[in-house]
C-alpha cells in the first residue's frame, strides 16, 4: 500500500532520464527506457490493486499524503494520492494500454530525428495522466489535467515544422482553455460550498448540498469535460488532433486522455446525484454528440479522421451513461473502448506505415492480401466496435443503452438516439474495413487517384478552413507509387496489436449481464459510486439487446451493399455536410473570422486604447514617478544621507507622537 507513489514515480523518472539523456541514448534505447518506465508503473499498479483487493469491500480506500503542498491556513492542499477502486482501475488500463502503445511506438517512430523527444513527452503524459486519476483533491487532478493537456498539444504539433500540425496543436490548446475555465470555476465553487477540495471530504459533505449549487458545480465540471473529452460544442479540436503521430492518437486521443472528462464526472458522482437536470443535459449532449459525430464519420476518407469522429461518438455514449447515472456503464465502455479503439488506431497506423504514409482510404483496397496480421486484428476491433456479440463493445454499449432506456423523462428517445448512433457506427466501421482491406481493386495502382479532392463534392480548396489541413499526418511524405507492394509492419508493432485484439475480444467478460456473480466491474467500483441507477428488468434488457444486434447487422449489411457490391451510389451517402462534420467547425471558423474577428478586433481596440491606454497612463505616471525618484536618486551621498536622516526623524517623531497620545 505504501507503494502507491511508485505508480506515477516510474514515468516521472523515465521523463527525467529521457529529458536529460534521451539524445545520447537515442534510437531505440530511448524507446526501450520509456517503455520500461510504463511497464514498471503497470507492475506497481497491479501490486497495489492486488493488495487493495484483499481488503474487505468498503474499506478499499487508501490515501497516501506525500507532502503538504499548499498549506495556507484553512486552504490546505496536500500532494496526496488516493488509491481506491476507481483510481486503480484507471491506473491499470492507462499503464497497460500505455505500455503496449509505447512498444508499438518503438517501431513506428523508428528513424525519426526527434525519437527521444517523442518518448520524453509520452512518459510525461503517462505521469500526468496517473496524477490526474490518483490525485486525492481537485487541485492535484487539475495539475494532471493541465499536464495531459500540455503533452497533448506538444504531441499534436510534434512535427511542428508543418504549419498545419502547429495550428492543430494551437486549436486544441485554445479549445481546451474554454473547458479549463469550467474546471477552475467549478473548483472555486466546490471550495466555497464545502470548504474543502478533497474528494473524500466532498463525498461526505455532498448529500447535504442544495440542488441549485450541485447543478451549478455539475455544469461547470461538465463544461470542463466537454473540452477534454471532445463533446459538443468543444469537440472540434479532436479531429484535427490527428495531425500527431498515430501512437499519440491511439494513446491520448482515443484510449486515455479523452476519457478524463468521464473519469472526473464519475469521481464527482455524489454531487451529480443531487444535480437534477444537469444529468439530463449531460445525457442529451452525449447523445447528440454521438449521433452527429457518427454521421460525420460516414463521409471521411482519411482513415484517422474516421477513427477520430468515431472516438467523439463513442465518448458521447459514455456521457449518455453518465447522464443516466449509469456510471458503471460509462466505465465499462471506457475500458472496452480503450482496448478496441487503441487497437483500431494502431492498426490504422500499421496500414499507414505499410502504405508509405498515405492516409486516404480511397487509395487503399484489397490490403487484406498484403497485411494479413493487421487485417485479422483490426477485424476483431471492427467486430468489437460495431457491437457484434460476443465481442467486448457489444456488452458495454448495450449496458449503456439499457441504462438510458429507463431515464425519466424521455429515456426511450435517448435510447433511440443511441441505437441510431450504434447503427451508424457499424456502418462507417464496415465502410472503413471494406475500403481498406477489400473493395475489389487495389486503388493505389490507378494513377488517376493522384488528384482526389480532399472532400467529396468540394473540389475547390477552401482556404480559410484550416480544419482539414491536419489530414497530412505523417511527416516523411514518401510518395505512394503504383508499384508499391505493401507488407505487414515489423513484429514490434504487430505484437501490441495481437495483445489488444485479445482484450478487445474478451473485455466483455468484465461485466456480463447474465448473473449477478458475473458483474465483476459492478462489484469492484460500487463502493466509490453514489446514486448508481439500476438497469431495466431482464426481459426488457433481452429485447433491447436484440434490437441493437439487429441494428448492428443492418449497418454492416448496408455498408456491404454500398462499398462491396456497389448497389448504392456512395456519393449520395457521403454528403458534403457530413464530410464537413455538419459545418460546425467551419461555422466556428466563420464566426471567428467574420463577426468574431470584428468583435475580437473591437476587443483588441478596446484593449489597445482603453486598457493599454490605462496601462500607458500608469506607465506614464510611473515613468514620471521614476523620473521623480531619479531626481531623488541623484547619486550624491549627501542627498542619500539626507534621505536617511529625514526617515530617521520621521520614525522618531512618529514614536514620540504616539507616546504623547
Amino acid at each position, binding site marked *: 500500500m505504501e507503494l502507491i507513489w511508485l505508480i506515477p514515480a516510474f514515468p516521472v523518472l523515465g521523463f527525467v532520464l529521457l529529458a536529460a539523456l534521451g539524445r545520447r541514448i537515442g534510437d531505440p534505447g530511448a524507446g526501450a527506457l520509456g517503455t520500461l518506465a510504463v511497464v514498471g508503473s503497470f507492475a506497481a499498479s497491479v501490486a497495489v490493486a492486488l493488495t487493495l483487493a484483499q481488503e474487505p469491500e468498503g474499506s478499499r480506500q487508501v490515501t497516501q499524503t506525500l507532502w*503538504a*503542498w499548499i498549506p495556507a*491556513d484553512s486552504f490546505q492542499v496536500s500532494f496526496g494520492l488516493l488509491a481506491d477502486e476507481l483510481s486503480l482501475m484507471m491506473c491499470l488500463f492507462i499503464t497497460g494500454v500505455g505500455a503496449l502503445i509505447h512498444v508499438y511506438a518503438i517501431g513506428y517512430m523508428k528513424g525519426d530525428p526527434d525519437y527521444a523527444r517523442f518518448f520524453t513527452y509520452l512518459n510525461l503524459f503517462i505521469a500526468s495522466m496517473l496524477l490526474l486519476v490518483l490525485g486525492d483533491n481537485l487541485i492535484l487532478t487539475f495539475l494532471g489535467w493541465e499536464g495531459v493537456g500540455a503533452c497533448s498539444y506538444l504531441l499534436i504539433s510534434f512535427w511542428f515544422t508543418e504549419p498545419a500540425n502547429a495550428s492543430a496543436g494551437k486549436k486544441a490548446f485554445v479549445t481546451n482553455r474554454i473547458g479549463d475555465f469550467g474546471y477552475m470555476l467549478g473548483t472555486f465553487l466546490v471550495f466555497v460550498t464545502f470548504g474543502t477540495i478533497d474528494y473524500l471530504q466532498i463525498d461526505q459533505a455532498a448529500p447535504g448540498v442544495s440542488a441549485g449549487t450541485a447543478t451549478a458545480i455539475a455544469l461547470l465540471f461538465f463544461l470542463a469535460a466537454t473540452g477534454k473529452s471532445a463533446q459538443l460544442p468543444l469537440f472540434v479540436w479532436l479531429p484535427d488532433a490527428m495531425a500527431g503521430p498515430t501512437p499519440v492518437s491511439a494513446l491520448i486521443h482515443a484510449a486515455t486522455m479523452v476519457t478524463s472528462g468521464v473519469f472526473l464526472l464519475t469521481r464527482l458522482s455524489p454531487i451529480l446525484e443531487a444535480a437534477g437536470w444537469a444529468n439530463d443535459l449531460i445525457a442529451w449532449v452525449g447523445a447528440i454528440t454521438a449521433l452527429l459525430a457518427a454521421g460525420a464519420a460516414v463521409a471521411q476518407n482519411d482513415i484517422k479522421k474516421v477513427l477520430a469522429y468515431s472516438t467523439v461518438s463513442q465518448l458521447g455514449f459514455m456521457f449518455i451513461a453518465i447522464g443516466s447515472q449509469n456510471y458503471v456503464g460509462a466505465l465499462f465502455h471506457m475500458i472496452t473502448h480503450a482496448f478496441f479503439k487503441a487497437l483500431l488506431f494502431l492498426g490504422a497506423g500499421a496500414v499507414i506505415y505499410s502504405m508509405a504514409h498515405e492516409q486516404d482510404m480511397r487509395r487503399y483496397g484489397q490490403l487484406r492480401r498484403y497485411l494479413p496480421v493487421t487485417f485479422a486484428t483490426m477485424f476483431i476491433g471492427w467486430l468489437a466496435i460495431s457491437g457484434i456479440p460476443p465481442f467486448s463493445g457489444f456488452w458495454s454499449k448495450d449496458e449503456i443503452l439499457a441504462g438510458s432506456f429507463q431515464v425519466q423523462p424521455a429515456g426511450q428517445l435517448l435510447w433511440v438516439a443511441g441505437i441510431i448512433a450504434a447503427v451508424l457506427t457499424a456502418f462507417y466501421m464496415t465502410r472503413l474495413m471494406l475500403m481498406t482491406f477489400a473493395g475489389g481493386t487495389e486503388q493505389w495502382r490507378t494513377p488517376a487517384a493522384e488528384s482526389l479532392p480532399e472532400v467529396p463534392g468540394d473540389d475547390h480548396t477552401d482556404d480559410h478552413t484550416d480544419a482539414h489541413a491536419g489530414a497530412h499526418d505523417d511527416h516523411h511524405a514518401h510518395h505512394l507509387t503504383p508499384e508499391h507492394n505493401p507488407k505487414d509492419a515489423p513484429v514490434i508493432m504487430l505484437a501490441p496489436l495481437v495483445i489488444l485484439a485479445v482484450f478487445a475480444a474478451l473485455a466483455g467478460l468484465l461485466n456480463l449481464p447474465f448473473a449477478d456473480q458475473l458483474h465483476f466491474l459492478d462489484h469492484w467500483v460500487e463502493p466509490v459510486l453514489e446514486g448508481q441507477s439500476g438497469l431495466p428488468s431482464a426481459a426488457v434488457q433481452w429485447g433491447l439487446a436484440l434490437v441493437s444486434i439487429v441494428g448492428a447487422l443492418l449497418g454492416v449489411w448496408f455498408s456491404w451493399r454500398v462499398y462491396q457490391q456497389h448497389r448504392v451510389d456512395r456519393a449520395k451517402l457521403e454528403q458534403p455536410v457530413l464530410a464537413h462534420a455538419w459545418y460546425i467547425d467551419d461555422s466556428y471558423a466563420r464566426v471567428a473570422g467574420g463577426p468574431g474577428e470584428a468583435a475580437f478586433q473591437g476587443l483588441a481596440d478596446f484593449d489597445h486604447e482603453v486598457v493599454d491606454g490605462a496601462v500607458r497612463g500608469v506607465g506614464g505616471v510611473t515613468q514620471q514617478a521614476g523620473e521623480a525618484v531619479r531626481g531623488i536618486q541623484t547619486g550624491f551621498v549627501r542627498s542619500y544621507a539626507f534621505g536617511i536622516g529625514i526617515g530617521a526623524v*520621521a520614525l522618531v517623531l512618529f514614536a514620540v507622537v504616539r507616546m504623547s497620545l
Partner: protein
Amino acid sequence: MSGPSVLAAALQDVLIEPAPGFEVPSIDWAGIAPNLILMLGSILLLTVVSVLKRRVPSWFAPVWTISAAVAAGCAVVPLWQRFADTGPETLVGGAVGLDGFSLFATVVVCIAVVFVALLLADYLPRESLESPEWYVLVLLSASGAVTMASADDLIVLFVGLEILSVAAYVMTAMHRRRVTSQEAGLKYFVLGAFSSAFLLYGIALTYGATGSTNLAEIQAFLAGDVVTQNALLLGGLAFMLVGLGFKVGAVPFHSWAPDVYQGAPTPISGYMAGAVKLGAFAALLRVFVVAFGPAYRQEWQPLVAVLAVLSLVVGAFAAISQTNVKRMLAYSSINHAGFILLGVLAASAAGTESALFYLLAYTFMAAGSFAVVTVVGRTGEHRQSLEDYRGLASVRPGLALVFTVLLLSQAGVPLTVGFLAKLYVVTAAVESGFDWVAVVAMLTAVVSAFMYLRIVATMYFADAPEGAPALRIPAATGVALGLSVVGVLLLGIVPGPVSDWANEAVAQLVVAAP
C-alpha cells in the same frame, strides 16, 4: 575531560587574561562550531595564502571556501539534534543563542557562500582580479551574518553587523578597474557608517531604558510592569529600526541599494541580496519580534508596517522604469525586502517561519539571477541593459530558460518557491490582522511581475541584434545556475520538509544561567 576541551580551556586561560573582578564566561566551543569554522576558515585561508603566496593554485581558495561553508553547514546537524533534545540554549555568558532560528539562518548563509564562491571562481579570472582576499572576505562576512543571526546581546549583534558590513564594503569596491564599483563601495561605506551610528545610538537608548543589552533580560524587563510609553525606549526602538532598516534595504533607507547593487561586482551583488539581507533580517527578527515582541509589539508594528508598504511600493514601481537589468534586480530586492518585512510585521511564530523561508528562497533566486547577469555582462560587465538581453532565447536557450524560471519564481508563479514564499508571508500578515498591508503586497507583486515578464519577453520575443557576442557559461557558474534552478523548483514543488524545518526554527530567548 577530553583532550580538546582541556586544550581549549588552557587556550582560554592564555588568551583571555581576566581583569580583576571580571568573570570570564565559559565558552561552549562545540555550540558555536559553525561560526568558528567560517571565521577560522577565513583566517586560515588568509594565513596560508600569505605564506605560500604565488604557489597556491587558483582553484585552492574557492574550494577551501566551499569546503568551509559545507563544513559549517554540516556542523549544524549535531547542534540541531542537541537543540531538538534539550531545547534552546544561550551560550558564552548569554551572548550567543543556540536555537532553531540561528541554526536555520546559519544554513542559509552557508548556501549563499557556496553560491558566491562558485560564481567568483569564474568571475575573478575573467575580470583579471584573481586574488584569495575575495574569499577571505566572503567567509569573514558570513561569520558576521551568523553572529548577527545568533546574537543574544545587542553588543554582539552590533559586532556581527560590523564584521559583515566592513567585509561587504570592501568587496563592493574591489573591482579595481570599474569606477562604478569603487564609487559604490565608498557610498556604501559612508552611508553604512552613518546608519550604524543610528543603530548604536538606538542600542544605547535601549540600554538606558532597560538597564541591559541582553535580549533575554530586555524581554524579561518588558514583561514586568513597566510604563510602555517610555521615550527612551521608543527612541531606542526607532533608531535601531533605522540602522537595521538600512541594512535590509527598506524604504526610506534604501537609497544606497540601487547604486551599490549595480556597482558591486555581480556575484557580490547576489551575495549581498542573500547573506547580508539575511543577517540584517535575522537581527531584526531577534530584536523586534522576540525581545520586543510579546510586550511591545503594538509600539513598533505601525513603524514596520510603514516601512513594509513603502518598500513594497517603491521597489515595485521604481523597478519598472529601469532599463538596466542589474538595477531592476536591485529595486526588486527592495520589493522582496518589503515582503519579508510582512513576516516581521506579523510578529508571530508563523511570521518568523515565513520570513526565514522567504530568505532561503530569495537566496536561491538572487544567486541564480545575478549569475545570469554575470554571464550576460561578459568581461567588464558592460552588457547590463535590457537591450543586451534581446533574443537571448535564440542565442543561449538554456540560459534564457533558467533566467525565466528564476524570474517567474521572483514574480511568485505557482510551482516555484517564490509563490510559496509570498504565500506564507502574506498568510502570516493576514493572520496577525494586517490585511491591508497584505493587499498592498499582492498588488505590488502584480506590478513587479510586469517588470519580470518584460525581461522574459525581451529574451524570447525580441530578435537578437546583429553580431550579438557568443556567451560562455563556465563550469562553476553552470553548477551555480543549475543548483539555483533545482532549488527553486524543488522547494516550489516539495516545500514540505524545508517548511517543516522552518516551522521549528523560531527564535527563543533563554536567560543565561547566573
